[in-house]
């Protein structure tokens, strides 16, 4: 399934937006967290600055998000992981309210209550969780609802290769296959579960091989490439929309940054990231688009400028938004 000009340009534009969002956040996140503005003796203070708490960024993993979401409509559901920004952006979650949530502002998606691991956008049907493997059960639920309501909506659950060894993952795979749910399970294998490499945590090389054991197709994408993901995801999404049941896709992708920002990464070979970056999917896609005649140098510059402006606007909106009132903490436990 070839993507074609329109879809390819959309994927490129979204990848630029994601990368620029993540790189901007990597810089902003450090504000106020380094000496001498923190407790004496500390190298870094995770709880300081305008964006406190853990921060898991997805630079390098853009192809997984855009290659799948290019097939989705607003009525389809996406459930992401603790590293959720690329999925959210590809699903159409508004950047400004998403950034505002990370700044803990009243204008954020969850009024500042959720933070970056807990983004909820019911309009664009996106959610995520800080608990590993937790994306699959609610995706099954969205798929079941579509089936019961007689809609052709599908649901996508993204999860990491580290999550593949969680009970919730296995239970969901069986349930979805048993009930022929319109759901697509997408495993993004970035090789690292915090400090533990896949080879030390998973008994087989491809999580997708487990699909056979649950009675669903297992699709392997060996390159961190948006078009390869697009081609693999197309048939799985169509199969789900036709009511023929779930699929499991696994994509080999790359984590350019630490597990969280501030991660000393003592476990990772020094030159690993530099080597991964030589195969950066974004410039590779730009070359492809130019070769196809889909994009000129001028158009490329325009797209880059557009992504930068969108991200800059989002961060400005977030910074300028008001804090919630302290006692707002007591609201929204129930509706």
């Amino acid at each position, binding site marked *: 399934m070839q993507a074609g000009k329109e879809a390819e340009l959309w994927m490129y534009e979204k990848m630029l937006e994601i990368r620029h969002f993540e790189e901007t956040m990597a810089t902003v996140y450090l504000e106020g967290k380094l000496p001498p503005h923190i407790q004496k003796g500390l190298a870094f203070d995770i709880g300081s600055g305008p964006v406190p708490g853990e921060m898991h960024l997805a630079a390098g993993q853009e192809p997984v998000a855009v290659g799948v979401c290019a097939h989705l409509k607003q009525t389809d559901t996406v459930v992401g992981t603790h590293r959720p920004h690329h999925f959210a952006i590809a699903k159409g979650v508004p950047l400004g309210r998403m950034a505002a949530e990370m700044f803990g502002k009243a204008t954020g998606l969850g009024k500042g209550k959720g933070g970056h691991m807990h983004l909820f956008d019911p309009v664009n049907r996106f959610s995520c969780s800080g*608990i590993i493997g937790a994306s699959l059960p609610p995706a099954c639920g969205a798929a079941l609802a579509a089936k019961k309501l007689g809609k052709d909506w599908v649901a996508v659950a993204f999860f990491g290769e580290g999550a593949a060894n969680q*009970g919730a993952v296995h239970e969901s795979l069986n349930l979805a296959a048993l009930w022929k749910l319109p759901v697509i399970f997408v495993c993004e294998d970035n090789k690292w579960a915090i400090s533990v490499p896949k080879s030390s945590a998973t008994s087989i090389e491809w999580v997708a091989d487990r699909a056979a054991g649950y009675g669903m197709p297992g699709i392997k994408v060996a390159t961190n490439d948006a078009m390869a993901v697009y081609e693999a995801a197309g048939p799985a999404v169509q199969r789900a929309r036709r009511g023929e049941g779930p699929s499991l896709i696994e994509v080999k992708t790359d984590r350019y940054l630490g597990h969280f920002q501030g991660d000393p990464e003592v476990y990772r070979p020094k030159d690993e990231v530099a080597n991964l970056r030589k195969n950066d999917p974004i410039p590779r896609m730009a070359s492809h688009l130019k070769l196809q005649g889909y994009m000129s140098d001028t158009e490329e510059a325009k797209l880059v400028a557009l992504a930068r402006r969108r991200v800059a606007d989002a961060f400005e909106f977030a910074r300028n938004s008001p804090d919630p009132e302290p006692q707002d903490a007591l609201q929204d*436990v129930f509706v």
Partner: protein
Amino acid sequence: MSNTRKLTMAQAIAEGIGQEMQSDDTVFVLGEDIGRYGGIFGATGGLLDRFGPDRIMDTPISETAFIGTATGAAAAGMRPIAELMFVDFFGVCMDQIYNHLAKNTYMAGGHIKLPVVLTTAIGGGYNDAAQHSQCLYATFAHMPGLKVVVPSNAYDAKGLMIQAIRDDNPVLFMYHKGIMGLPWMAYFEGSSNEVPEAAYTIPFGQARVAREGSDVTIVTLSQMVQKALLAAEELVAERISVEVIDLRTLVPLDREAVLRSVRKTGRLLVADEDYLGFGLTGEIAAIVAENLDTVQLKAPVKRVAVPNVPIPYSRPLERFVIPQVGSLVAAVRELMTASVRQPLEA
């Protein structure tokens, strides 16, 4: 008397584990990122290099499997230490903890020993939101079959850890992230203190008088002990003398230490970073209520804890729900001006 030096709580815990591993071949550790990383919160720092991957075992992200494995290995003669990275993750493996680890000894009529130490990080204060900031010790203390240890400083943490490893029962060892002394998270410096080099134990069920006082008793534990000590210091200027009781363990609970102090001061503040409802603060208040025949209160019991909402992300919201030094100071002042109704005439 062995030499002492100042350690962080993380260093003290790792030292205690290392010493027990040195002296007992059946002790081993399993959990996520405990090897090369040394534990996300440093509780196993340096142990991989000393003991190798057969005894410091990085696991898949499979808490049900590896906590259940710890239970099974303990029944078969080992003394495992399993690390649940954040207590909030108990949701994915609670069955193995409370239906098996906590109950098997009882259901076997005491014929099975399960010397498992389950370590886990608790607490907020650094804006990690609702799934990574809870304390939840009362949840575990509520269910019979687990001893629950919640240290407030390095000295206690090492002694309690060695005690936990040598105990023949399941022990949940809960360390607050904000007193571990990590290089990447602000912490209360009172939690780093002098720790003997040699191995030693601190018996469970013995609370510590962290500060003596005569006007108000603050009963608390974990990081809140450090906040209470700062509050007590602040109140000196107002000539209010605060006694701080550090419970150290919830199961077993040193009820007598609470009563002894409240009999002296007549005023009780229970300060807690766990949820207010159905929790530790209510338990401590009930102990006093049950003993009003021997305790003379000068003011109604006061409780400060997280109101019954999940921990919010945003800084002003989180600071509002988690009791701060200022909240303790304010609560003590209120206790000093409050009074109890006189008993009704018979």
